[in-house]
């Protein structure tokens, strides 16, 4: 075979190298990053695009929120700065929620890559930053309260820092050193990406990436279309209520499979609300793409080809396609329902590869206060997951993150940072919904305030009124509960804790799958032995004696 002929072997090797380049570059950035969520939970993404702006690959270590968001960011960047206005060494920045990932804390950047005078590619990245200024609160009424919005602008102009942009950032952020440190780490990663991409092109004798990109995109698209074609054509719908802030909200979803195309529409979903739980379309689409990929083609590469046959729409001004100036900081409080809606709609045709609802949106709690010793103030965010939904071939795991993927923190580490003792972190018996396969158990956490100074606690929890549903005959999991000193408190609220006060969080349990009557007696027996199911519940749900 000749060196320049683009057969399957050579294409495969070049493609692999492109994947490798973004993974290496992302890793270089991760190692230098300050933001803890970036490092520990891969709250970031790196992508490479061809000169036409088609996404070729994205770093493997990433999270669902960033699936397909960078192409939209690049489009918006190119609208403002057409290729004729881009120069080698430029970096364009923005954190606009509507062209980015749905909230201001994710800063996205784009860097054009030139070979000589010729634009051949774009590198782009998104990374979470802990502080973006402003005063984000659970009661924010518009996006202006939520922090600094960086318009699309050049933060680096032909290799030279743009002092105006840097000054704006420095003046508006609480911890500019960390945020700018993360931004500069991405500059270094772009340089690295540049060098690696040039040596790939040199060694493979490529003048431009278009022929390679055409193949990558065509093959990815074909593979996704083949996977969709294998599904039965039709319209599949689902709808359910969710807690909301002051009133319940409605989610409606219709999945249409038509030959080799799949479309998801959220018509009928509640209008956007004046609370910071709205999802911009880009975030809705990311979670929708995530669910479709899991269901249809888990190995699909993350590029323009795989995304092409999947269309995701939501009515403008709705909860899932909020328009400015809607507050969007806690977008996951609605957006995490997107996979549930798609899984629910497609369950009847995916009986062999489905998951009942999980105890999500992700639960977290902020504790803020002052240490008794000379360590000063603290603000600590703590994550806790509910039960995972039951799956087609087995029970849902207890306390496992879905559809996001955020780990817990060791209690021993937490107690070093916050003057509290955790009295309990254990499964709640009977909290997983009954079914042939039961939902994963939820957990109970008991926190006791210990310091002399009061602690302010902020929570925004879902699934208090509407527990995770079971599917295809499975029963719902247990709803979540929040309590202080034995009294139930509002799931979206702020409380002040004095020494000795006890807080109880009970996360929601996963939904069950298929009818409980189909459950194997051995599994019921095992659950009773382990204590995950009580004898009384076994009798009630499974008629097991």
């Amino acid at each position, binding site marked *: 075979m*000749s060196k320049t002929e683009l057969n399957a072997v050579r294409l495969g090797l070049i493609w*692999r190298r492109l994947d*490798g380049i973004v993974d290496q570059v992302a890793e270089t950035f991760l*190692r230098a990053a300050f933001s803890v969520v970036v490092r520990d939970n891969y709250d970031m993404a790196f992508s490479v695009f061809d000169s036409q702006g088609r996404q070729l690959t994205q770093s493997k270590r990433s999270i669902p929120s960033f699936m397909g968001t960078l192409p939209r960011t690049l489009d918006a960047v190119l609208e403002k700065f057409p290729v004729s206005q881009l120069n080698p060494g430029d970096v364009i920045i923005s954190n606009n929620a509507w062209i980015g990932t749905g909230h201001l804390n994710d800063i996205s950047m784009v860097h054009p890559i030139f070979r000589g005078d010729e634009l051949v590619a774009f590198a782009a990245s998104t990374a979470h930053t802990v502080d973006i200024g402003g005063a984000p609160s659970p009661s924010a009424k518009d996006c202006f309260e939520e922090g600094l919005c960086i318009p699309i602008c050049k933060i680096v102009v032909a290799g030279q820092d743009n002092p105006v942009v840097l000054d704006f950032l420095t003046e508006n952020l609480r911890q500019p050193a960390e945020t700018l440190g993360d931004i500069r780490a991405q500059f270094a990663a772009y340089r690295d990406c540049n060098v690696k991409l040039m040596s790939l092109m040199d060694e493979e004798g490529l003048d431009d990436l278009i022929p390679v990109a055409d193949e990558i995109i065509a*093959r990815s698209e074909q593979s996704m279309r083949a996977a969709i074609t294998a599904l039965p054509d039709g319209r599949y719908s689902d709808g359910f209520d969710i807690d909301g802030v002051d009133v319940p909200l409605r989610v409606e979803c219709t999945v249409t499979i038509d030959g080799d195309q799949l479309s998801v529409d959220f018509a009928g979903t509640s209008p956007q609300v004046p609370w910071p739980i709205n999802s911009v379309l880009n975030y809705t689409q990311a979670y929708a793409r995530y669910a479709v990929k899991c269901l249809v083609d888990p190995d699909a590469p993350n590029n323009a080809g795989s995304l092409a046959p999947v269309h995701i729409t939501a009515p403008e001004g709705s909860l899932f396609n909020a328009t400015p100036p809607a507050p969007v900081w806690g977008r996951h409080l609605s957006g995490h329902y997107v996979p549930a809606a798609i899984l629910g709609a497609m369950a009847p045709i995916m009986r062999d*590869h489905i998951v009942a609802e999980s105890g999500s949106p992700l639960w977290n709690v902020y504790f803020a206060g002052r240490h008794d010793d000379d360590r000063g103030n603290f603000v600590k965010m703590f994550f806790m997951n509910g039960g995972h939904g039951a799956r087609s071939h087995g029970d849902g795991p207890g306390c496992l993150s879905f559809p996001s993927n955020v780990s817990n923190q060791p209690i021993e580490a937490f107690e070093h940072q916050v003057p509290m003792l955790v009295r*309990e972190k254990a*499964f709640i018996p009977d909290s997983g919904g009954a079914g042939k396969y039961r939902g994963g158990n939820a957990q109970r956490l008991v926190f006791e305030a210990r310091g002399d100074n009061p602690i302010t606690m902020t929570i925004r929890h879902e699934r208090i009124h509407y527990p995770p549903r079971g599917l295809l005959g499975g029963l719902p999991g247990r709803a979540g509960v929040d309590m202080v000193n034995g009294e139930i408190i509002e799931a979206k609220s702020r409380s002040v804790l004095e020494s000795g006060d006890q807080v109880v969080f009970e996360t929601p349990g996963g939904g069950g799958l298929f009818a409980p009557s189909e459950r194997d007696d051995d599994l019921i027996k095992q659950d009773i032995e382990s204590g995950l199911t009580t004898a009384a519940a076994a009798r009630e749900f499974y008629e097991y004696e």
Partner: protein
Amino acid sequence: MSDMETGDWRVGVDIGGTFTDVVLWREGSENLVQVKLLTTPDDPSRAVLDGVGEALAEAGIGAAQLTSVVHGTTLVANALIERKGVATALITTQGFRDVLEIGREWRYDLFNLDIEMPTPLVPRRLCLEIDERLDATGAVDTPLDLEQLPGIIAALGAADVKSVAVCLLHAYLNPAHEQAVGSAIAQAMPGLAVSLSSAVSAEMGEYERTSTTVANAYVHPIFRDYVERLAGALQELGYSRELLLVLSDGRGIAADVAVKYPIRLVQSGPAAGAEAARLFGELARQRDILCFDMGGTTAKACLIHDGEPERTVNFEVARETRFAEGSGLPLLIPAIDMIEIGAGGGSIARVDQRGLLQVGPDSAGADPGPACYGRGNEFPTVTDCDLLLGYLDADSFLGGKMKLDRAAAEKAIQTHLADHLGISATEAAWGVHETVTANMAQAATIHAIERGLDATRFAMLPIGGAGPVHACSMARKMGIARLVCPAGAGVASAIGMLAAAKSFEIGRAAPAELSSLDFAKAADLLREMAEEASALVSSAGAEEAEVTRRFSVMMRYVGQGYEIEVPVSLEMIERQDREALSAGFSECYSNRYGRSEDMPAELLSWRLAVTGQRSTLGDTLGQRSVAGVAAPVSKTTRPVWFDAGFVETPVYKRADFGTGSRITGPAIIEENESTLVLPAGFQLSVDAALNLILETTS
């Protein structure tokens, strides 16, 4: 070798999945007696005894003349992977019985809806709670309720438990409650093995520490019995001196210490391989080495930086999904940092949904093995492709002991790959070879980046049967310009055991911010650690005068997720030198990340490595120069595929080369256990230690 030679005779024994390797060495001699025989899985000590016997006979000495036996084994890892440990219970703090099953609440595979989370080694019904609580300073919040113990002991008895793990919150700061529980159980049930988290792994993080302690308990009785059996059998041979075991960090320790902490042996054999790589690198005067070990079922990489293998205290065993970080059981133990970068020669190649070649992660393993083994696997593997490309020879594989079926390999590649891709079988084979090499190169490069290191500055040292076949191509893909191919790579782990020093590392978590560190308390802790570690090492036969102590502390900027190791001295802590500690941290940080920050720092845990005298193996092997022919002549040639076609390529035997020999690629150099592929663009020379040194010329 003349019979009845006197001197210090030492033997290294490595039990691998397939082979048991024995290497016998007399201190000061440059000759090694090497024996390789099949592992005897039903009773691994049988192959050990046979091998040692054979080596002794070859050297013409008796077992009584041996001064030490150093041993590594996969027993611990296998017991965990195959879940063949004993019935184990866990005793934990009230409110935390689900610590194992809850884990870290994180999915190791984002897109697989059916992922399996690791099944805990202790079932929930045997996770028992006791009322007690320490706070984050180690002070008692709730006293231990000893009155609950009889009930717990009765439950252990009723469940016929053989081993018990005790892991209480914050016990890494204060072991008192664990010790009280442990001694009460020992008194009531003398036969029961007890593992305390404060002794097994005094690290912060309740899930990982519990997982480590439980894993230790789970294999404890099995390992204790095994060591007793082995020591007994050696005694029957006439050997009754020290038996050393190699730990996961490549250090050697007396058997009586090792049986208390069997979990420390989980990576015993491979760690010794890394020690060997360090030794071989030293012989070739290379302090930065990327050891690349590719066998039939796995390919591993390990970095040796500035003469020391990279180490970690976060290990993972028994993964549910191969290569998926987070799918196994986490272990907080000192270990040499190695990663699996591929599934070895048995990796199966296929054409995916996008019409492209994929290699692995599924593997035909050693049994049935590649299609060319003729044992019933019809799918093409990396080894089949290497055979078709002429890298391997059907008749000289494993020194001719095993004949390969070239036609079967070709058929597998033709049917499953070439026909789908519309190319020839050889082109497909070349694609597989390049793909698997590219995969490994990428994984190794990313591993280096994760450690803050630049792989292009390292020399590659390929070992294992398939390592030298893929090494040059992989080095080129990684931008590595120099390779070292040592003599005796086929028994590297056993050689590494002879090179390992008697040594032990202990860690104690003691989180604190640098600005408020209580130095007096820290100094007390370090002195306590020194006492504990010295006792462990001197029982391994190291003379007190030879012992060196190396203290260090794991540090990071407040809020960061990764910590780095900062060397300290007891004296520095005693004189309360905050500035020196801070400067030391800044220096280590900027060595690793190229800059340091103006931010507050924190300490996570103190570490101490106590080391006895180093082995002199390296000094003697460095001088075993055998003068060679400057330009050896090959006896045969065969067609070998490079880049775009077959080239009639000279085939050498490794024995054709001596110090000073020099050739340029393309060439094939065959040894009994492996084949080195030297493409054009590489030149080969031989150094004084008989290493083949390969360098790129273009």
